């Protein structure tokens, strides 16, 4: 087993990976940008190295520098987390060539599945169904428009090298086509340095359902059931749950086998996710495979009891899987709410600034994977996701009640967040019934925002009274002498999670 691992990431995922490493007795090396000197992942780590200025292109994406640090620190393996370099084949290759283990699939698998066009071509050779669409990236706009017309509007434009909703556009009419392609290309170029995009058919009342897979270097590939990820906005997931309220055991079995076949088709090794679209007739289509740990992996961990990061590390060190398909038993229901620094009442505009107060929910079945603390500054440099709240309970209804309770308990002061938006989704009757699809947000947008904007007289009076109190208190305190309290804490040597 490895003695030291470098985590080539920041934020909640860096912390998530470090936690498991520490539980396994492995030392952790953090890398950080100039904006992140006191970020939670730096404080947690055993060693931390500055890798460049705040913009990620000069720091977290600077793989030469990260590789240098890996060598200097004596790390035996590198965990890329998700995003940044996790799906960069050059990085995976160079890490391996330097004699360091890349905790992830072989570069060849990343290359095939990371490029949506190549992935499609690979999948067309298997029994796994794929969504109708172009097999080549768009080069000529007129040709592309003809293809789109053949498939039939609405169509989806997607970045060939991307993910997470970036570089994606839905087009309802031929007249909007050229403009949408331009936007998708620019966004994709800026986010991934790859401006190629392709087109596919948009399905009826589709569900986004993905299967977690694990594959070792000894030829064993298993799946850990599904995650339902249909609650999205701007093609970005907001709430995920497992099991899916939409599929039954028969479909689960078929899709699980398709997920394993997908992984085997590219000789996959490590943890990966096979994403499917399932239409209202319960036809499923391969969408893409994510060759890394997913943001929403904790819901699978909560229902299976398997630590996916620990499995990744074991697989990377050459050990066989610790469990076989027959022994995968799931229990209860898990729901994840992604908490973004965004203002849901202003079209999800990013919100930056200092977190002036923080109360993270806890209690039975409540897990928060985040990397925030009071006093920290949320900058515009990185992803707006602050963390994920994962609630587990014995059944779906209890898990939703628990999520609602925990969201109510959650307080982040100083910036706008999507906490309340998640609450509005969870108490929406269609979500409660479990009959939602990926159009949920578009269909119920107005209801959700009305819910957010509605306040009782009592709440309005509390708001007004507080404002009045606050303004008068400010007037008061400016007349009186300095009211600043002296700190009387004895905890001058706070540990903040570090081992001493």
């Amino acid at each position: 087993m490895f003695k030291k691992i470098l985590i080539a990431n920041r934020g909640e995922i860096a912390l998530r990976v470090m936690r498991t490493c520490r539980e396994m007795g492995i030392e952790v090396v953090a890398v950080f940008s100039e904006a992140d000197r006191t970020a939670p992942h730096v404080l947690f780590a055993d060693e931390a190295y500055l890798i460049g200025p705040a913009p990620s292109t000069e720091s977290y994406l600077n793989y030469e520098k990260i590789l240098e640090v890996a060598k200097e620190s004596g790390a035996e393996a590198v965990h890329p987390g998700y995003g940044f370099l996790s799906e960069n084949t050059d990085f995976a290759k160079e890490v391996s060539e330097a004699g360091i283990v890349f905790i992830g699939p072989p570069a060849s698998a990343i290359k095939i599945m990371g490029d949506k066009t190549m992935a499609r071509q690979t999948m067309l050779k298997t029994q796994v169904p794929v969504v109708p669409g172009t097999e080549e990236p768009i080069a000529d706009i007129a040709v592309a428009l003809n293809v789109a017309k053949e498939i039939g509007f609405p169509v989806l434009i997607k970045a060939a090298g991307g993910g997470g909703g970036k570089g994606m556009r839905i087009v309802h009419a031929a007249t909007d086509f050229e403009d949408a392609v331009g936007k998708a290309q620019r966004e994709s170029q800026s986010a991934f340095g790859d401006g190629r995009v392709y087109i596919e058919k948009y399905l009826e009342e589709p569900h986004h359902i993905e299967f977690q897979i694990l594959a070792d270097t000894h030829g064993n590939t298993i799946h850990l059931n599904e995650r339902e990820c249909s609650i999205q906005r701007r093609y970005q997931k907001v709430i995920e749950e497992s099991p899916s309220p939409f599929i039954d055991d028969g479909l689960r079995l078929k899709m699980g086998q398709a997920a394993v076949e997908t992984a085997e088709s590219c000789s996959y090794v490590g943890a990966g996710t096979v994403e499917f679209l399932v239409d209202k007739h319960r036809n499923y289509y391969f969408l893409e495979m994510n060759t890394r740990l997913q943001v929403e992996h904790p819901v699978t961990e909560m229902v299976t009891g398997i630590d996916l990061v620990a499995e990744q590390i074991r697989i990377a060190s050459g050990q066989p899987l610790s469990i076989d398909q027959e022994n995968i038993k799931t229990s209860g229901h898990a729901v994840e709410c992604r908490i973004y620094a965004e203002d849901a009442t202003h079209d999800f505009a990013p919100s930056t600034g200092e977190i002036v107060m923080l109360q993270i929910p806890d209690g039975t079945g409540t897990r928060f994977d985040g990397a925030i603390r009071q006093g920290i500054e949320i900058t515009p440099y990185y992803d707006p996701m602050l963390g994920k709240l994962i609630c587990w309970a014995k059944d779906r209804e209890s898990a939703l009640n628990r999520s609602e309770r925990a969201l109510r308990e959650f307080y982040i002061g100083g910036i706008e967040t999507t906490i309340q938006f998640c609450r509005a989704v969870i108490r929406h009757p269609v979500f409660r019934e479990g009959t939602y699809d990926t159009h949920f947000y578009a269909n119920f947008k107005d209801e959700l925002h009305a819910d957010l904007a509605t306040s009782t007289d009592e709440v309005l009076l509390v708001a007004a009274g507080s404002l009045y109190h606050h303004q008068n208190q400010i007037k008061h305190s400016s007349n009186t002498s300095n009211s600043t309290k002296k700190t009387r804490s004895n905890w001058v040597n706070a540990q903040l999670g570090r081992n001493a």
Partner: protein
Amino acid sequence: MKYEINTSQRSLEVDFNFESDGLIINVDGKTLHFQAIQIHSGVYSVLVNNRSFVVGICPNEANRVNVNGTPINLELLDAVHLHLRELGWDSMQETKVGLISAQIPGLVTKIFHVPGDEVKEGEPLLLIEAMKMENEIKSPVSGVVQKISVNEGQTVEKGTNIIEIV
């Protein structure tokens, strides 16, 4: 002190009076005992007739208050403001609707217009990239582009004036 509370949806008339043990709010013939204890700068624990709330006052936006996590936009008008409004003055209407400032900090990636262009309400004016997402800034009014204060490739802070439409 008489006050009027306004939101985009409704209006309430209240009477606020500070007493020794807190604030007394009279509304619709009811009396509420309001007590606020500051637990952190701008964050209060509030008890209203023994019902408990956590309230945050946004330091930058005077009329935005967060109650149990829910943001609420409201306007609190005192007797002087109410009187001015009766006289035809409306202090809240001073800001120009056509003066558009950046609602998010980020990088200006594309500007669709030049001064002199006619734009319709809802038409995209420019793109600002923040947190790796491209955000379209739409015109809140129909009119003519008077002034553009930023260039493509420029980084803007939240609140920077970017474009003016008359």
